[in-house]
C-alpha cells in the first residue's frame, strides 16, 4: 500500500502535476515560519531575562534623589540594595563631541544579571558587581568608535576629565530602552558632583535597585507604595516588559499579518491545485473502484499521498523560512542592543503543523470527494461528478486559519479588527475586479483580432479571473503600500518641518548662565536664541479636588498625570502657538495658566477651571485663562502649561532653549560644552535621523515579508492558470485546426494576461492609495496628497508580472500538436 502510494506520488511529482501545490505549501510555510522564528527570537530577547532586564527583582524609579530613609528600611527588611543615577550628557575628547547616556552605579550593581567589562589591563572579560574606580569610566564600543578613542585615553565629562579603563560588553538593564539613543558611559557615583552636571532641574533618573526573598520584597512593596510621590514608580519584571515591548509588538503584528495573508493566499493556491488534481483523477479512481478498490482504500491512498507531500513541502518550507528569518534579523540588527538569542524549536514545530493543517484543510476535501466516484463512470463518462459544497470544503480550514490569526495576534479585538479590515479590502478588490471583468464582457471577440479574443477570455471565466486578480492585486498592494509609507508619508511628515527649524536643544541652563550664554552666541556670530525658564511641577488638584492616576480611565491621562509637567512663564505667547479660547495675559501681575488644548482635553480641563501645581513642596494655584493649540512638529521649545511672569518661584527654575545650528558649524558645540559643561545639548536632527532609520528598517523588514504575499499571489495565478490548462490546450487545438496561426494565439494569450495584470495593478494602486490616505490621516495626522506615479508604475508592473508568469504558465499550450487533442 505504502509502496503504491509512494510510487504514484513520485509519478505525479515527476509529471509536474503537484508542483504548484508543493510550491504553494513551501511559500505558505516559509512565510509563516520565518516570521514566527524571528518573533520568537525577539520575544526571547525581551522575556528570557525578564528579571535581568531590571538588574534587580524590584526597583524604585524617581526623577529626584531617593530619601535615605527608604534605603534604611529596605536594608532593615533584609533586602540587598544598589543605586544608579542616569542622565544624558555630552562627552568631549579633543574637538570631538558625542552625546552619551551616563550611568553612575553603586557597589553591588547589578543585583541580577551580569555586567561584563573588558578591563584595559589584561583585556580579559570580567564580570563586575561594582563601579569603575573613581577617576575612570567604562564605555560602550560605539562611543569609543564615534569619538575615535581607545581604552586608556582620556575623555571629558562636564567639568571633570576621566581615564577610560574598560569596555562594557554586556549590561543587564541596558535593554530597558529598546531603541538606544546614545551609547553608554558608566562611572563611579563619587565622581558625579565634580562634573557639575547634576543641577536643579536636571533630567536625571534615580533608581533604587532591590533584590531578596519574595516575602521581603512583598513587604517592601506594601510599605513603599503609599510613600511614592508623583513621578516615582515601582517596577517589577512584568512592568519592564510591558514598556519595552509595545514598539516592537506593532512591527511583529505587521510581520505576522503579512505572513498570514501569504499563508491564506497559499492556501487558496493549494485548494485550486488540489481541485484540479482531483478532477484529473476521476477516471483513475473510477477505474480503481471498478477493479475492486474500496472507498476506504481510496481514502488511505490519497490521505497517504497528501501526508507525504505535506511533510516534504513543509520541511522545505521550514528550511526556506529559517534562511529568511536570518535575513530579517540582519535587517533589523541595528535596532537591538543585545544580540538576538538563537530561535527555539517551537516555531519550527508550529510551522510543520501549519503546513499539515493548511494542506489537509484545503487539499484533502476535494481529494476525499474522489472516494465517492461512481465506478460506473468507467462506462459512462457523463456520470455526475461527486461534489461537495464549497462551505463544507473550505469552512473548517477557514475556521482553523482564523484561529491561527487570533492566536498570532494574541488579541481577539485586534483579530476581529484585522479580519474585518482584510475582509473589507478583499470585498472591495473583489467588487472592483468583478466590475472590470463585467466591463470586459462587452468586448465581443468579433472583428477577428486575436487580442479581442484574449480580452473576451477574461470575461468568459469571471470566477477564475477574479480570484487571480484579487490574489495578485493584494500582494502588489501590500508591497506598494509599504513603498508609499516609506517614501511619501515620511517625506510629507518631514516637509511639515521648516528647513531652519531648531535642530538643537540646550537644557539644564542655569540662571547665572543666561547672560554668558547670550554673550557666547553673540561672540560666535550666531543669533541669540530665546531662552525659556522651566520648573517641574505636578498637577495636584483640579477645582480643589485632588487628582491622581485613579481619577482617570484613559491610559494617556493616567500617564500624563503621573509625570511631572514642565512649567514655564513668559510675557508673550511663543510663535508656534495659537490661542483657541480665553485671553493671553496683558498685565504681568495677572494670575492664570495657559494650557495646551490637547492635554486639557485629555485631563478634562476647561477654561476657568482652577489648577493647583505642586512645585518643590509648594502649591501654586490659579485659574485657566486660555487654551492654546501648539504646532509640536515646529520643534520649537513648547510647554503644556505656561504661567504669567511672577507667578512661579524663580529660584527653582532651570532654563531651556532651542536653536538652529547650520551645517558645518559643529565646532561651535564643542566650544559651548567647554564653556558650559553642565548644559546638555540634544541634537534633534540626529534624533530624527535615528527615528527615521528605525522606521525605515521596520518598514523594510515588513516589506521584505510582504514579498511573500506577492509570491503567494503569483502562485495563486499559476494555480489558476494550471487549472485552466486542459481547457486551454483543447481550445487552442481547435483554433489551430480551424486555421489560427501560432502568432494569433500567442497575441490572444499575452493580451489576456497583460490585461489581467493591468487590472491587478490598478486594484493594487487603488487599495494602496486608500490605505495610505487612511494611515496618513489616522497615524501621521497629515493630509495625503496622493501620488500619481504609483498608478502607471503599478499598472505596468502588473502587466509585466502577470504577462510573463501567465505566458510562462501556458507555454506548453502551443507546444502540443493539435492532432492529439482533436482526432
Amino acid at each position, binding site marked *: 500500500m505504502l509502496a503504491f502510494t509512494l510510487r504514484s506520488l513520485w509519478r505525479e511529482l515527476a509529471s509536474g502535476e503537484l508542483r504548484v501545490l508543493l510550491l504553494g505549501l513551501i511559500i505558505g510555510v516559509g512565510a509563516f515560519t520565518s516570521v514566527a522564528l524571528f518573533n520568537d527570537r525577539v520575544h526571547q530577547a525581551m522575556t528570557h531575562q525578564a528579571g535581568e532586564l531590571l538588574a534587580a527583582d524590584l526597583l524604585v524609579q524617581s526623577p529626584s534623589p531617593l530619601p535615605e530613609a527608604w534605603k534604611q528600611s529596605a536594608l532593615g527588611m533584609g533586602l540587598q540594595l544598589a543605586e544608579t543615577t542616569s542622565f544624558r550628557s555630552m562627552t568631549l575628547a579633543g574637538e570631538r563631541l558625542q552625546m552619551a547616556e551616563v550611568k553612575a552605579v553603586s557597589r553591588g550593581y547589578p543585583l541580577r544579571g551580569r555586567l561584563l567589562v573588558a578591563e584595559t589591563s589584561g583585556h580579559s572579560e570580567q564580570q563586575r558587581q561594582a563601579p569603575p574606580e573613581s577617576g575612570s569610566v567604562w564605555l560602550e564600543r560605539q562611543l569609543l568608535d564615534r569619538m575615535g578613542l581607545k581604552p586608556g585615553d582620556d575623555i571629558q565629562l562636564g567639568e571633570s576629565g576621566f581615564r577610560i579603563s574598560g569596555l562594557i560588553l554586556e549590561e543587564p538593564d541596558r535593554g530597558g530602552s529598546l531603541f538606544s539613543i546614545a551609547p553608554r558611559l558608566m562611572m563611579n557615583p563619587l565622581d558625579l558632583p565634580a562634573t557639575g552636571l547634576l543641577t536643579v532641574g536636571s533630567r536625571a533618573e534615580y533608581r533604587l535597585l532591590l533584590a531578596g526573598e519574595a516575602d521581603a520584597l512583598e513587604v517592601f512593596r506594601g510599605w513603599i507604595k503609599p510613600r511614592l510621590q508623583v513621578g516615582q514608580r515601582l517596577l517589577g519584571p512584568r512592568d519592564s516588559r510591558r514598556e519595552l515591548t509595545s514598539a516592537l509588538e506593532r512591527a511583529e503584528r505587521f510581520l505576522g499579518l503579512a505572513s498570514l495573508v501569504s499563508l491564506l493566499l497559499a492556501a487558496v493556491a493549494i485548494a485550486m491545485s488540489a481541485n484540479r488534481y482531483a478532477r484529473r483523477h476521476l477516471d483513475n479512481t473510477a477505474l480503481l473502484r471498478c477493479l475492486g478498490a474500496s472507498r476506504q482504500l481510496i481514502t488511505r491512498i490519497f490521505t497517504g499521498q497528501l501526508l507525504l507531500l505535506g511533510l516534504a513541502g513543509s520541511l522545505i518550507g521550514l528550511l526556506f523560512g529559517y534562511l529568511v528569518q536570518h535575513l530579517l534579523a540582519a535587517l533589523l540588527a541595528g535596532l537591538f542592543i543585545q544580540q538576538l538569542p538563537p530561535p527555539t524549536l517551537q516555531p519550527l514545530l508550529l510551522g510543520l503543523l501549519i503546513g499539515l493543517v493548511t494542506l489537509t484543510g484545503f487539499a484533502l476535501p476535494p481529494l476525499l470527494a474522489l472516494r465517492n466516484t461512481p465506478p460506473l463512470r468507467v462506462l459512462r463518462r457523463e456520470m455526475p461528478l461527486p461534489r461537495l459544497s464549497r462551505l463544507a470544503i473550505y469552512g473548517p480550514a477557514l475556521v482553523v486559519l482564523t484561529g491561527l490569526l487570533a492566536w498570532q495576534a494574541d488579541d481577539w479585538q485586534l483579530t476581529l479588527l484585522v479580519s474585518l479590515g482584510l475582509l473589507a479590502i478583499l470585498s472591495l478588490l473583489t467588487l472592483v475586479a468583478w466590475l472590470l471583468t463585467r466591463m470586459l464582457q462587452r468586448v465581443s471577440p*468579433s472583428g477577428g483580432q486575436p487580442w479581442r479574443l484574449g480580452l473576451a477570455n477574461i470575461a468568459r471565466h469571471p470566477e477564475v479571473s477574479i480570484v487571480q486578480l484579487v490574489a495578485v492585486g493584494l500582494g502588489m498592494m501590500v508591497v506598494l503600500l509599504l513603498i508609499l509609507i516609506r517614501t511619501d508619508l515620511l517625506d510629507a511628515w518631514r516637509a511639515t518641518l521648516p528647513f531652519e527649524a531648531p535642530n538643537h536643544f540646550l537644557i539644564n541652563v542655569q540662571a547665572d548662565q543666561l547672560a554668558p550664554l547670550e554673550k557666547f552666541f553673540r561672540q560666535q556670530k550666531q543669533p541669540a536664541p530665546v531662552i525659556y525658564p522651566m520648573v517641574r511641577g505636578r498637577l495636584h488638584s483640579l477645582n480643589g479636588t485632588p487628582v491622581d492616576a485613579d481619577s482617570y480611565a484613559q491610559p494617556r491621562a493616567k500617564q500624563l498625570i503621573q509625570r511631572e509637567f514642565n512649567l514655564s512663564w513668559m510675557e508673550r505667547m511663543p510663535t508656534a502657538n495659537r490661542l483657541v479660547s480665553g485671553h493671553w495675559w496683558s498685565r504681568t501681575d495677572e494670575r492664570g495658566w495657559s494650557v495646551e488644548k490637547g492635554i486639557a482635553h485629555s485631563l478634562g480641563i476647561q477654561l476657568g477651571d482652577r489648577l493647583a501645581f505642586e512645585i518643590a513642596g509648594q502649591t501654586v494655584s490659579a485659574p485657566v485663562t486660555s487654551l492654546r493649540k501648539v504646532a509640536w512638529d515646529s520643534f520649537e521649545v513648547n510647554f503644556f502649561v505656561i504661567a504669567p511672569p511672577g507667578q512661579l518661584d524663580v529660584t527653582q527654575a532651570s532654563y531651556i532653549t532651542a536653536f538652529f545650528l547650520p551645517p558645518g558649524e559643529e565646532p561651535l558645540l564643542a566650544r559651548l560644552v567647554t564653556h558650559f559643561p553642565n548644559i546638555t545639548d540634544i541634537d534633534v536632527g540626529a534624533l530624527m535621523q535615528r527615528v527615521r532609520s528605525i522606521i525605515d528598517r521596520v518598514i523594510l523588514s515588513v516589506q521584505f515579508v510582504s514579498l511573500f504575499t506577492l509570491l503567494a499571489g503569483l502562485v495563486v495565478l499559476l494555480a489558476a492558470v494550471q487549472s485552466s490548462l486542459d481547457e486551454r490546450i483543447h481550445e487552442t487545438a481547435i483554433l489551430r485546426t480551424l486555421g489560427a496561426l501560432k502568432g494569433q494565439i500567442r497575441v490572444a494569450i499575452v493580451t489576456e494576461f497583460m490585461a489581467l495584470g493591468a487590472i491587478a495593478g490598478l486594484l493594487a494602486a487603488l487599495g494602496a492609495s486608500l490605505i495610505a490616505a487612511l494611515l496618513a490621516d489616522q497615524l501621521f495626522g497629515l493630509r495625503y496628497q496622493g501620488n500619481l506615479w504609483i498608478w502607471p508604475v503599478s499598472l505596468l508592473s502588473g502587466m509585466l508580472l502577470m504577462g510573463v508568469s501567465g505566458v510562462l504558465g501556458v507555454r506548453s499550450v502551443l507546444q502540443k*500538436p493539435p492532432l492529439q487533442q482533436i482526432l
Partner: protein
Amino acid sequence: MSQQKHAESRPIVRAEDLSKQVSSPDGPLDILQGVNLDLQHSETLAVVGASGSGKSTLLGLLAGLDLPSRGRVELNGQNLNSLDEDGRARLRRELLGFVFQSFHLLPSLTALENVMVPLELVGHSDARILAEEWLQRVGLQPRRLHRPNQLSGGEQQRVAIARAFATSPQLLLADEPTGNLDQQTGRKVIDLLFELNREHRTTLILVTHDTALADQCSRRLELAEGRLLQASGC
C-alpha cells in the same frame, strides 16, 4: 477565370506514398503505409476501416495537422511538406472545414461565437451576420446564444456543421460525424451534411465505419492496418 479553370482541372487532394511511422516500446510502428489518393473537386469520398486501421491518421495528414514520415500531400496543388505549421494553418482556414465525432466546439463560446471563429480568423468583416445566417440554415437561430453545454449532441453537431460551412471551404473533412449521436439524430445530421454539401459543391472526405453512410459517397476507400485495401467508386 482561366486560373479558376486550371485549378478545377487538377485534383484538390493528392496524396503520394503517404506513410506514417511512430516509435513504440517494441520499435517503430507503421500506422499508415504507402497510401496514394487523388480527389477531384465536388467528389465525396468515404474512408472506412476497423478501429486502428489508420483512418484518423490519414485524415490528420490530409488536413496538415501532422506531417507524414514519408510521401507527400498536396492540397489544391500546394505541397504541405513545403509549408511550416503556420503556413499549413493558413491553408486550412482558406480551404478546409471540419466536422468531428466529439463536435469540438469551444466550450466558453456561444453557438453564434463558435460559428464566428473561423470567419474571424480569415478576417471576414461580416462575421456575425454570416454566422447568424448559417445558424438559421441549420435551424439553430433561436439557440444562437446558448453555450455548448446547454445544447444536445445533435444540436452541437449542427453548430459544428454551420461552423464548417461558414467559410465556404472547398474541402470538408468529417471524422465519424454521427459517432456520438443516436441513430435518428445521426440520420438528420447526415442528411443536413449531404444537403449542404450538394448545395455548395464541396469536396467531402468522410471517415466512418458505417457502411450505409459510406454508400452515400461517390467513392469509397478501405483501410486495414495502415494499408489501402481497395478503392471503389463510380
